[in-house]
């Protein structure tokens, strides 16, 4: 079944090995065949991948558009190990990504990686807002 793509003016989309940039009006088109397709808003660049989860997203994205997922496996597992060690509660999201990679459905893996980024954001928010409480807690425990 063909995939329907609609682009806003000047929006870009990655299809296979090329990038298509829309001109100044809305465009709608259909894509047939089995090639990676990514909208500009879903694309993660190396510069923007500055957190552990975003790096995982970038890795999965490289698997998706690269055609040979094995190239990224080493980096992927290194990153995954890091994140599981730092935040074990992220496991269920990571398991989801793994399952999709294993099933060969890299697009779904990418969607799951996005969930991981959201979860990471949650954790990082906790870290910045709960800093005072946490150090307080440590002090309490010491006195006990």
């Amino acid at each position, binding site marked *: 079944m063909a995939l329907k793509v609609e682009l806003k003016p000047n929006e870009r989309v990655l299809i296979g090995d090329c*990038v298509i940039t829309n001109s100044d009006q809305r465009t709608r088109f259909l894509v047939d065949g089995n090639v990676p397709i990514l909208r500009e808003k879903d694309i993660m660049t190396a510069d923007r991948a500055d957190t552990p989860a975003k790096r995982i997203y970038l890795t999965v994205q490289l698997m998706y558009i690269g055609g040979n997922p094995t190239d990224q496996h080493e980096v992927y597992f290194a990153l995954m190990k890091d994140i599981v060690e*730092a935040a074990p509660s992220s496991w269920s999201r990571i398991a989801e990504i793994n399952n999709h990679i294993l099933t060969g459905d890299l697009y779904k893996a990418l969607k799951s990686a996005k969930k991981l980024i959201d979860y990471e954001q949650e954790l990082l928010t906790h870290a910045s807002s709960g800093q005072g409480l946490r150090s307080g807690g440590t002090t309490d425990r010491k006195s006990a």
Partner: protein
Amino acid sequence: MGDIVLSAGVRKNLLSLQSTADMMALTQNRLATGKKVNSALDNPFNFFTSAALNNRAGDMNALLDAIGQSQKTLEQADIGITAITKLVESAKSLAKQARQSTQPVATYNQTITGAAIAADVPASATSTATAASVYGAATAGDTLSITVGGTTHNFTYVASGASAAAGTFSDTAELQAAITAAGLTDITVAEDGTGHLKIDAASGSFTVGGDMGTDFGFATTANTPSNPTFAGLTPPQSLSIKVGAGATETFNITASTTRDDLATWLGGLHLPTGVSASLNASGQVAITSTTSDVITVTGTGNTATTLGLVGTNNGVYTPAVTVTTPSQQRADYQSEYNKTIAQIDSLARDSSYNGVNLLASDTLKVVFNEDGSSFLNIEGVDFTSAGLGLLSLDGDDFQNNLTTDAVITKLDNALRTLRTQASTFGTKLGTVETRQNFTKSLIQTLKTGADNLVLADPNEEGANMLALQTRQQLSTTALSLSAQADQAVLRLFG
């Protein structure tokens, strides 16, 4: 014994001691098991997550074993293919050796008969005006012309009752007489049931002209014969015949091509002695040969099919060979060949692993995840001698070069099939290996995850993530990742 009253200070110290004892027990247990969370009571969330991770690692391990077995099945099939390929290659060298030895005398015979081609429909034309009205309005000196084979014959109208000189007429009967007198014996004119003038040609085309031709309403273009069979080919098409090493001769079929044209062409073919081609009494193309020539009949579009000339080998006809005094040497090669072919069957049968034989049409299902939603079905093939199209030879196949060549062609096809299948299995093996490696790495990570699982405090996890974020910034992993991203199409989004 009276109650012992504990002061607040003593009570606090005692509680502290008790909890220290608990902690020591916990620590000892952790040291003993190497895990920080050992029971659901220590930390329910972590315990159950950890247990789930361990279970999953266990499931994955079982899966990995199954994948390993599948790999073995594929490898076994590959070994089988390699061995069968060697057998086919040696069978081919036997056939080639037979072909190089002296060829015994043979007689050749073949008959090719096509499908019946419908009879031609002769050229014919009917006037739009009735004969009576045209004759009534005609004045003496009006002409009707009939052109046949490039020569135009004029017939002049004269008043009724005037004595008809040569080439004159005043009615249809006189016109017919004049036409016959002019030597156009193939042309007949008559008035049909409705009084219209109808001109028929027994063969060939004709054109009607002159002022009376216009009065009758005849078309000014040529009236041509046609053939329903050829018309069904949606002309233009063509039929080509090649005999042995001779040149290919081609017959072009247009809208006006008739069966007679084809018969003429067949009669004029440049054929070697012993080969003849004609259109037989049933309207079929018939080619007979007593030479060793291979006859190739091809056609554009559906021509060869419609004319029934495709045969059993795509229009390539090989003669039947009769050998009166077979060569013993060639017979020996043939019996050796048959033995080799028989070995293919036993090899194909022995290529099973774990009850699955991919060379005997079994299907191998490789499951990649625990719930079985991801799997790869590997379709088996029939690589017995029959499946490869290599049958044991019981005739005089090796006694003649022509029939030996046919055997060699079959062997070449079998070799091609074997090589293609080997590469197909290779690709599948690659897929299985990729998944296997992924699963292996995953199991390792699962184990690490389960063993380190001590945190469920979002604050602490958050802090860890911040630290990791900083640490990764400078790590080689991050560097290699950006290098990979730069090579890909992603840099266009930079």
